[in-house]
């Protein structure tokens, strides 16, 4: 990143990066958790077992808080396209505006029409419609993800556009634009990553209750669903989706791939660095420990494949912060690998029936939930830093995109405002979520509905 502190583009990037990174902490859980709610609601309909409804009621509260923060932090994102990136909006608005508008029309309306019903409306809706509300919310949140990722995919790999007479972009084919191959791969990769976050959070709460020996029925439910979905999602996020994403970068943004890997010199039998620190001035990776040939194989399919190095490109075509890009990518890969191992082991213990009793594993699962958030964040940093110095890859430079009429004074003012507001919002969110989790799921509903058939003694046991 060009960190010249009087550069307006820097401050607009800083603000957008900050508000977007913060915002995305919430939708990734929304998108991950939504399908857990659908699953439990469906099980409740099928089996009539109240424990599933108890789980939905509890998680719907967490979902609701998380959704609300996601909505309020998301609305500024849409407007910042115009406020801070007027140059880009003027240039590409005719194309990216299509998906920004479609996200509103097709996804947000669906999602927010039903989210109130999902959280507050169980008594008004009845079980079947309540289930449908859960499906509506889940579909809406994933659809919204798709439209936004199409927008991002256009910035990564522009397709379906044409340059109009006035030099601005217009859309030439909606289907090409919406079915951008980059968007499909990115969507699959990103949604699996959101599921990883959802699974780890559900698992962590299950582990927390198991360790405290409270809510044992609910705890078992969360651990089972969380670890099972967690393993599947952790595997899918690496293969095939992450793998395909890397190949896509290798094909269309070879210079970004070189920077992600800290490859200053090109060559065949290129290795993947497990450890190493890039020294951009000296153009080398220091203290590297490499797996030879792995990069050639992963990016292009054979060990002999030639991988381009940064040296083959002029410096002004390099991503403008090679170091941060390198670390983001490596952190993502490392965390992703750990997730697979952890979830595989948890499932193995679960299969042997020993998950509830392996105290140290429960501790690890309980404490692991922040790491998918980190992995998602650094994954997005990899995508966005790797795209630099372009705003729309190969078409439009980031330095041309910011709003010329907005002074640094204004941008820094709003940035400070966002930092203050979001800090308070974060404290509030953690406090309330912590309180909900400490309170735990209400299992009284279950007791009430069975009260006719069970004796007072059994009632005490359940409680």
């Amino acid at each position, binding site marked *: 990143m060009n960190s010249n502190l009087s550069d307006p583009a820097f401050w607009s990037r800083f603000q957008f990066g900050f508000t977007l990174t913060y915002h995305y902490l919430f939708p990734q859980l929304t998108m991950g958790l939504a399908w857990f709610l659908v699953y439990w609601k469906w099980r409740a309909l099928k089996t009539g077992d109240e424990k599933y409804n108890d789980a939905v*009621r509890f998680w719907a*509260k967490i979902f609701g*808080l998380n*959704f*609300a923060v996601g*909505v*309020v*932090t*998301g*609305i*500024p994102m*849409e*407007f910042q*396209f*115009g*406020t801070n990136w*007027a140059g880009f*909006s*003027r240039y*590409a*608005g*005719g*194309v*990216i*505006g*299509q998906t*920004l*508008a*479609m*996200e*509103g*029309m*097709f996804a*947000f*309306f669906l999602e*927010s*029409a*039903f989210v*109130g*019903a999902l*959280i*507050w*409306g169980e008594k*008004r809706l009845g079980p079947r419609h309540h289930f449908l509300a859960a499906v509506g919310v889940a579909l809406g949140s994933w659809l919204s993800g798709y439209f936004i990722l199409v927008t991002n995919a256009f910035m990564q790999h522009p397709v379906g556009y044409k340059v109009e007479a006035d030099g*601005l972009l*217009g*859309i030439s084919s*909606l289907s090409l634009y919406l079915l951008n191959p980059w968007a499909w791969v990115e969507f699959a990769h990103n949604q699996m990553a959101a599921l990883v976050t959802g699974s780890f959070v559900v698992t962590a709460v299950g582990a927390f209750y198991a360790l405290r020996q409270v809510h044992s029925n609910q705890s078992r439910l969360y651990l089972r669903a969380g670890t099972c979905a967690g393993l599947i999602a952790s595997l899918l996020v690496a293969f095939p989706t992450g793998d395909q994403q890397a190949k896509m970068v290798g094909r269309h943004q070879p210079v970004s791939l070189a920077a992600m890997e800290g490859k200053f010199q090109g060559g065949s039998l290129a290795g993947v660095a497990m450890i190493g620190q890039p020294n951009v001035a000296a153009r080398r990776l220091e203290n590297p420990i490499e797996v030879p040939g792995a990069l050639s194989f992963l990016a292009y399919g054979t060990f002999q494949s030639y991988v381009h190095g940064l040296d083959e490109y002029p410096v002004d075509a390099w991503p403008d912060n090679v170091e941060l890009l390198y670390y983001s990518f490596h952190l993502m890969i490392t965390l992703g690998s750990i997730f697979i191992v952890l979830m595989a082991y948890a499932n193995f213990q679960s299969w042997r029936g020993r998950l509830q009793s392996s105290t140290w594993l429960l501790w690890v699962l309980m404490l692991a939930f922040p790491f998918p958030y980190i992995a998602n964040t650094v994954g997005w940093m990899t995508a966005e830093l790797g795209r630099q110095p372009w705003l729309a890859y190969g078409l439009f430079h980031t330095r041309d995109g910011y*709003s010329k*009429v*907005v002074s640094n004074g*204004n941008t820094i*003012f*709003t940035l400070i*405002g966002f930092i203050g*507001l979001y800090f308070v*919002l974060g404290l*509030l969110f953690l406090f309330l979520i912590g*309180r*909900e989790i400490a309170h735990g799921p209400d299992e009284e509903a279950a007791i009430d509905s069975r009260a006719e058939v069970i004796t007072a003694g059994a009632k005490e046991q359940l409680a």
Partner: protein
Amino acid sequence: MIATWYVIVSLMLIIYVVLDGRNFGAGMLHAVVAKTPEERRQVIAAIGPLWSWHEVWLVGFGGTLVAVFPKLMASAFAGYYLALFLILWCLILRGVSIEVGGHINDRLWQAYWDFVFVFSNFLLAVLFGAAAGNVARGVPLDANGDFSMAFFTNFSVRGQVGLLDWYTVSVAIFAFVLLAAHGGTYLVLKTEGPVHDRSATYARYLWLAVVPLFGAISLESWVVRPDLPGRAIYNPLCWLGLLVVIASTTTLISGLRTGRELRAFLASNFLLAGLLITGGAAIFPVMLYSTLSPQDSLTAYAVAASHKSLLIASIWWPIGFALATTYFVFISRRYAGKVSVKRDNQGFY
């Protein structure tokens, strides 16, 4: 084609104002019509589950604006920079206060969030009013179609204007009273008991106050933009808007008189819509008027996206709108009738 899209984008904004306007209004009246904690929960429950659904119309509007009028979006959003962020921050506070206020059953906690709720709704009504005033008055657009505006300059309506001047402040006051009356009418429809009775009293007085303010605003607008009426009388949509205003005013009066709450509230919605239709039609085709030199004003024709982009948007937009309407019918049916705190509240402890 471009005129059609002007109508569509205006329609989305009108729907947003009508839907979220009731929340701003009810949110402001919250301070005076609800006296006990239970009564306050009643007001929140009347807004409760649907506020985010109303708010996404603003997002839908913003997104559609980028798609069909990208150059306007670029110019206006960058120019209104600080005002827009103030609105966004108030929207954040408003949403958060609804969501978290209900989570803890504690006097202090709820008192605090009730205050934030009222305050942010008040600011939103005033800011949106000032924004509407700015659109009517114009902004200091230069020949490149750019402008940047301070909060205030010398409170005059010509030349290098600021966000606030005597005209935009009066529109803000008008919006405040109008939305409070709208929200009051909504609370009458949705609540029972003392909140209902107090809301009815407030709504009556507020609607009475709207009448002289409306006269004043019309006169002021004529002073600020003497060029508008001459063009507006040839625009049929302007007449349609006025017709809607007159019809809904009559209905509103009869609804309030006879205590037909649904009729009064529907009329209130149409009254707001009618006012906005008249205003939107009167300024067309100019979307941003330049107070520096009128020939630099941005018209819908100058800021529209390419013909192909508009054509493509005309294919999917009606589908999206039809779906949104379907959800609206479904949700409105489910939430018809008075709210009950017991049934519609979040379970707090």
